[in-house]
């Protein structure tokens, strides 16, 4: 039987008196790839931040005991203003150089980047650095907020390939937030549709019906699934 690593039950999140998430329940098993799908403002990022443990909530969030979580937030706007190089960014986690180089290699970046200032990196490079940063403590689960935001199509493809490779090699469990439907069919084994409340949960082909999508995005969205095999 596959090990369960996260159980969310009747989760409610309120911020500043506003209800952001209501009555959310789902279970994640080891090695699962989940895409949390929903329009802008649906509470996806809030959900991820709540799962990481930085926001107060009601209901139940039960991670496997002593689980290591890697978290890649959506944007880090402040970091570009700080004269910090890649090496020093990793050293904030108190890790040694050997581990840093290994982690960089696993996301396809050479060690020559270590002395570069973070502010001078391209968004694609920076995104990879963030993944490597999250992976360096060997987490079992990776929470990733909009990994493709602000990255061009070729960059998107390569980050998607990278995540798929990492997931296979490390048997990593991935929870990824996105508003992009295409990613679901390319990448997800499971999908969780949220717009304040849970609108669907399960295998994409089964649960992403036109009716659900209509409720989720509120318009006449058409969704074509296509197979790559």
């Amino acid at each position, binding site marked *: 039987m596959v090990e369960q690593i996260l159980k969310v039950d009747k989760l409610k999140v309120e911020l500043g008196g506003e209800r952001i998430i209501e009555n959310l329940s789902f279970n994640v098993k080891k090695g699962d790839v989940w895409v949390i799908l929903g329009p802008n403002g649906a509470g996806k990022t809030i959900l991820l931040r709540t799962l990481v443990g930085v926001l107060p909530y009601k209901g139940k969030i039960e991670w496997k005991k002593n689980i290591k979580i890697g978290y890649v937030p959506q944007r880090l706007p*402040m970091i570009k203003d700080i004269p910090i190089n890649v090496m020093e960014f990793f050293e904030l986690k108190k890790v040694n150089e050997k581990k840093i180089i290994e982690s960089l290699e696993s996301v396809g970046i050479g060690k020559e980047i270590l002395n570069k200032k973070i502010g001078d990196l391209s968004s694609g490079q920076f995104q990879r650095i963030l993944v490597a940063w999250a992976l360096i403590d060997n987490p079992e689960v990776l929470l990733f907020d909009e990994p493709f935001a602000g990255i061009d199509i070729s960059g998107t493809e390569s980050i998607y390939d990278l995540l798929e490779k990492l997931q296979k090699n490390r048997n990593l469990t991935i929870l990824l937030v996105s508003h992009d439907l295409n990613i679901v069919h390319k990448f997800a084994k499971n999908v969780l549709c949220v717009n304040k409340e849970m609108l669907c949960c399960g295998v994409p082909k089964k649960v992403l019906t036109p009716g659900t999508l209509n409720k989720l995005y509120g318009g006449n969205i058409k969704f074509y699934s296509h197979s790559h095999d």
Partner: protein
Amino acid sequence: MTNQLILSLIVAIFAGGAAAYLGSLMVAKKMALVGDALGHVALPGMGIAILLGLNVSLGAFVFLALGILLVWYFSLKTNLSTETLVGVMFVTSLAIGFLIVPEPELLEALFGDISNVSVNACVISSVLALVSFVIINQIYSKLIMINISEDLAKSERINVKGYNLLYLFLIAVIVALGIKVTGTLLVGALVIVPAAAAKNFSKSLKQYAYGSLVIGVLSGIIGIFLYNLTGFPAGPLIVLTSCVFFLISLIFKK
């Protein structure tokens, strides 16, 4: 060189160095003007200390600590930024300060005076500056992480609220020390200018933090020598020296 000059030099080096080092964090956190505004928060405390015949730096520190605690408390209770809250605190204090600081002492409170530092004051200032430097050094990377992203810091199980409070407390200590050197009006320069100069040429956090420290110390030394040479007040000379470093640093900026 007279003994009095050596005492002034020591205070300028320690207070200036510690302020510049802390300033590198404040500039990175976009809180540069907080130090400046906080300088004024000290004014009523200095006034009360003068009226009661107590130590002026102590009076300044008590009011700074009080001001910082209020800012910290309000920042948790409201959605206003630290900068806005400090702004409110700053004008309130300045108004009260002008009312209660006696006129003859007002000039010294505003522009500082380290030409008559006692041995005791010199020792206390240097020890406080050194201790603050060591603490800042220990928590530097944690504060940078919090600055990059509070979420990321919390996910690394860093006590964000606790570190922020300690950081604000250190600002209070450093500003109180700096006021002795430059007065309340110019104390902001001790934290802002060296860090701004260092940021211009730094390619790494180490260069930035220690570059700022070195510029702070050098400005103190050169400023005191200029004071000895010209007889102008030391505070403004120290500040102007750091401004020259800033101008030079612009050459290295890409």
